[in-house]
């Protein structure tokens, strides 16, 4: 029962080594390869994510800077356009004033001319009337009563005309 055969001990050692190789080749190596691949992928993904995060951070900063610049630019633009607007307003008002003054002057002038014309017409009519009256007086016979009547008529006509 306790007899030891060296060959069988050697066989056991060989068997153990064979089993070790079998495990190494068929189990540990294969699983390790998969685990390594998985870890590499995870590392890769992590690095990628970090890179993207950094990029995003940079972009954010540059946008913030640009946004600040844009605010200032915007204020400048608004100020400029306000100034332009005021200038235009002043110019329009001044133009309008000048035009109005001219119109007033012209109107005054026209009114004067019209008044003069009316006056002239009135005077010429009056002259005609006087001539007519003088003619009437000249052709009619003279007495005190008819003269009076004539004068009155003339005066009434003149008043009527002038009104």
């Amino acid at each position, binding site marked *: 029962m306790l*007899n030891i*055969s060296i060959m*069988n*001990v050697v*066989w056991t050692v060989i068997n153990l080594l064979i*089993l070790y190789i*079998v495990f190494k080749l068929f189990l540990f190596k294969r699983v390790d390869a*998969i*685990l390594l691949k998985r870890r590499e992928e995870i590392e890769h993904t992590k690095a990628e994510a970090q890179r993207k995060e950094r990029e995003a951070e940079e972009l954010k900063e540059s946008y913030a800077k640009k946004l600040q610049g844009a605010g200032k630019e915007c204020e400048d633009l608004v100020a400029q356009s306000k100034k332009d607007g005021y200038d235009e307003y002043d110019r329009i008002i001044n133009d309008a004033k000048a035009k109005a003054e001219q119109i007033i002057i012209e109107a005054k002038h026209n009114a004067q001319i019209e008044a003069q014309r009316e006056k002239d017409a009135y005077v010429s009519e009056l002259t005609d009337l006087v001539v007519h009256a003088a003619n009437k007086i000249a052709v009619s016979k003279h007495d005190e009563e008819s003269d009076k009547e004539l004068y009155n008529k003339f005066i009434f006509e003149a008043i009527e005309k002038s009104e």
Partner: protein
Amino acid sequence: MDIGGLLNELLLEDKVLIHFDFMNGFFDINKSIVVTWGVIAVLAVFLLWLTSNMKVHDISNKQLVAEMIVDGLRGITGGMLGEEAVRYRDYMAVVLVFIGASNLVGLFGLTPATMDLNVTLGLALMSIVLVEVAGIKFKGFGKWMKSFAQPMWVVAPMNILELGIRPLSLCMRLFGNVIGATVIMELLKMAVPVIIPAAFSVYFDIFDGLIQAYVFVFLTSLYIKEAVE
């Protein structure tokens, strides 16, 4: 009940399976060696099936089991070996599986391979070689030689004796436990042929077999851990 006859049959049976006629039977191959060939073949086929078609993503249940086996075995042996000797964990895992599987073949009606002293002796020799190689590799040959005289020169003979005692105790423990369990099971079957042997078989064939595998690996790991300290 012929207990003596049973024990004779169990302990003194002819273990030789393949006999060669030259050199006075020096090259004879025992039954236990053939059983371990079978164990190796079955394990190899199982592993080939288990680890075929592995993927990085969307893994199948089969691959999950393979990864769990690797993680589990390495966790057990790596924990026992410690950080310094963690590179030997794969070998220790293989020894664990080898002894466990060899003990469990009793379930299929075969004689456990570890019931042959030659097999346990081979395992124990491999263990002590590994322990000393690990020590030499870690410390260098000079320091390894000096470590025999530590902590004092007086204990040097004890340390040298340990070189023989350790593998002997490993080998005898495994052999004795397995043969003891088998003898008790045979006696039980003789006394009560039904039901009771089935219940005890759970302990003696499965639990005890795995415990002995664990103990063997645990002690070897402990020696390696000591050697690389």
